[in-house]
């Protein structure tokens, strides 16, 4: 495992809420895909059934945090300043994937965009745009 792999595994393993939701991640080079396997306890609307919108928001926020940990070693976990979430399609009872793109990683602020999808990447079910307060390591 290289450094980025190690950081990714340790960040997801260390966050209790990421474990509670069952979030995993796969890294290919510097490209990370976060995976949210379907489970009954992440359902919000039992009638359709559909994944809870809050869970999708949380999943995309975690994806952004994980991507930041891959991009650079941090002195501490980035703090979320704000997120703006758009819900495009209802989350079906199947595996959800997400990828984050860091638009800018500054000395204090990071701007990150995330997209979540299920069977078709070109048909995202939700997107998130977030601002994070970061503390990259000096070395």
């Amino acid at each position, binding site marked *: 495992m290289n450094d980025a792999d190690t950081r990714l595994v340790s960040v997801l393993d260390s966050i*209790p809420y990421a*474990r*509670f939701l069952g979030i995993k991640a796969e890294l290919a080079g510097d490209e990370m895909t976060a995976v949210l396997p379907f489970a009954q306890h*992440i359902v919000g609307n039992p*009638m359709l059934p559909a994944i809870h919108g809050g869970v999708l*928001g949380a999943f995309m926020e975690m994806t952004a945090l994980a991507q930041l940990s891959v991009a650079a070693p941090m002195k501490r976990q980035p703090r979320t300043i*704000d997120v703006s*979430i758009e*819900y495009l399609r209802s989350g*079906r009872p199947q595996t959800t994937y997400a990828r984050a793109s860091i638009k800018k990683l500054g000395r204090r602020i990071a701007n990150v965009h995330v997209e979540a999808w299920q069977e078709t990447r070109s048909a995202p079910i939700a997107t998130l745009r977030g601002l994070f307060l970061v503390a990259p390591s000096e070395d």
Partner: protein
Amino acid sequence: MSDHEQTKLIATAMNEGSPQAKALGFTTLEIGDAVALLKVPYRPEIIGDPETGVIAGGVVTTLLDHASGQAVHAAMETWTSIATLDLRIDYMRAAEPGLDVMARAHCYKLTRSVAFVRAVAYDRDPEDPIATGQATFMLDSSAGKKAGANLKPSRQQRSKTGGVDQ
């Protein structure tokens, strides 16, 4: 049954019937007149930063979304299905480790198709918020959709297999 009693039943159904709300232990403390006050109890499983023991931002997201949805139901005269269109959350400060988190949501405008909601999450004092949220909801979101609609293959899947979208 009064409107208030009916709204309370909807709130209970949304907390008990929604597996994620139940898994997080959401309860509704107050509901009525377009306002809902919900609580999530503090517990180790929902921590976001293990170094500080602070509750995960994502849990606050889910609580604000859920509370906002209940505020919409508290504003409507008759029940319809609703779906979150968008949600913006500002995180002002870390929640205090060990404390339950509350969310008060107010549906301040209801149109024929869309509801507008503002919400505040706090632990000790509503005037010292952890986070604020602003959300819009689509009303009658599952119009025509039957129970179990999401169990059928999606449009994209059907087009891949040459099926017809009916």
